């Protein structure tokens, strides 16, 4: 083969090769994107579910306690004082503000701390031993 021909075809071949490599990357990336989107949705969902579940479980517990005590106060007014009842209602209001939807600018942890604090206030006013117990949990893997 003539030298120049060889040189020319060599250059063209390099271009073709690079193009080929890019092509493969793109194909791979397309497939990856689709898989990644699915994975991300599921992973995110599992994570969100775990977090939401655990946090709201505690908050729900405080809500249940407050509701129970409120009812008790109505049926056995001597046990629970007027002042305590006020605290209980205040706790219930605070719990109502706990987000059912996750919004980015919500400071959920801060709210949880406030709720915890309020609960402790109520609990000590009622002289109850009630407290939220967190059993050791497993993580979900999917």
């Amino acid at each position, binding site marked *: 083969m003539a030298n120049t021909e060889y040189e020319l*075809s*060599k250059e063209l*071949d390099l271009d*073709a*090769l*690079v193009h080929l*490599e*890019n092509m*493969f*990357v*793109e194909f*791979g*990336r*397309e*497939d*990856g*994107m689709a*898989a*990644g989107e*699915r*994975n*991300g*949705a*599921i992973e*995110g*969902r*599992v*994570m*969100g*579910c*775990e*977090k*939401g*579940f*655990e*946090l*709201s479980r505690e*908050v*729900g*517990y405080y*809500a*249940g*306690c407050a*509701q*129970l*005590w409120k009812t*008790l106060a109505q*049926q*056995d007014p001597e*046990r629970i004082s007027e002042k305590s009842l006020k605290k209980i209602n205040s706790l219930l209001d605070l719990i109502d503000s706990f987000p*059912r*939807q*996750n919004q980015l600018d919500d400071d959920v942890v801060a709210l949880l701390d406030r709720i915890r604090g309020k609960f402790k206030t109520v609990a000590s006013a009622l002289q109850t*031993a*009630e407290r939220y117990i967190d*059993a050791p*949990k*497993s993580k*979900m893997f*999917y």
Partner: protein
Amino acid sequence: MSDPEHHDHSSVDVWEDEGGANDDVWGNDDDVSYDRAIAQREWNRLHENFGNTGYREGIEEGKEGTLQQGFNQGWSEGVQYGHELGRLRGLISPLLEYIRSSPTAQLSQIEDKEEWITRAAQVVKELVELDIAKVFDKAYFDDGRGSSSSPDSNNKEKKKGDGGCCGGSAEGSGGSSCCQNKDVDVDAGSEAEPAAAGSSMPSTGCCGGKGGKGGEGSCQSNKSNSCKSEKKDDEETVEIEWSSKPEQVVNEYRSRIRALLLEANMEALSHTV
């Protein structure tokens, strides 16, 4: 993106031979077929290496987009059931304490008090120890809401195709072949698992049964459910509702708590359960 290694002499030669309209037609057959073989191998190698690189990139990119969205969805779902389960415990636990601590109070006059106390303590204990994995099973997440497939957790770290529906092949066939294989399972699944229960949950009959049995190996069953997008029409015409695992769990505790409240003269509260 070009890999210098690939510019080796043999591939250049190969291209020359393939491209040339001149020599190889008359050339030595052995040379051509040997070069062909080399070419094929080279092609495959390029495909695999660069394909994988691209795949890895693509997965990261794809994930980023849907992670937050998925998180938000999961959060609402978790809160929905978590709050109720926590509340149920909160309704009974202080009541139990009250009844134990004030034996003479009118409110604590319960028929067969000891038995009530035992039952109440039992349900509280269960609710304290209730593990999230017992509430949300795999099948719940396979219901196709917001996602059409679930990855096998064991394979999450692998780069090639395992995350996707029928990701066995890196070629990304889109899973049509896999889905066809699983068709039978899908049908059997949805017919085997109906449970009549008023529920707002979408029909998850498809992978319901499979999900429950699966352990790590359940990727197979998960894949079958991911073909839901193709099977969806069929499933909807089946129209059997079943309640999801979290619904079942919550309802079970609800009824026990309701009973306990009623027996403890807390009728008004029992209606909130």
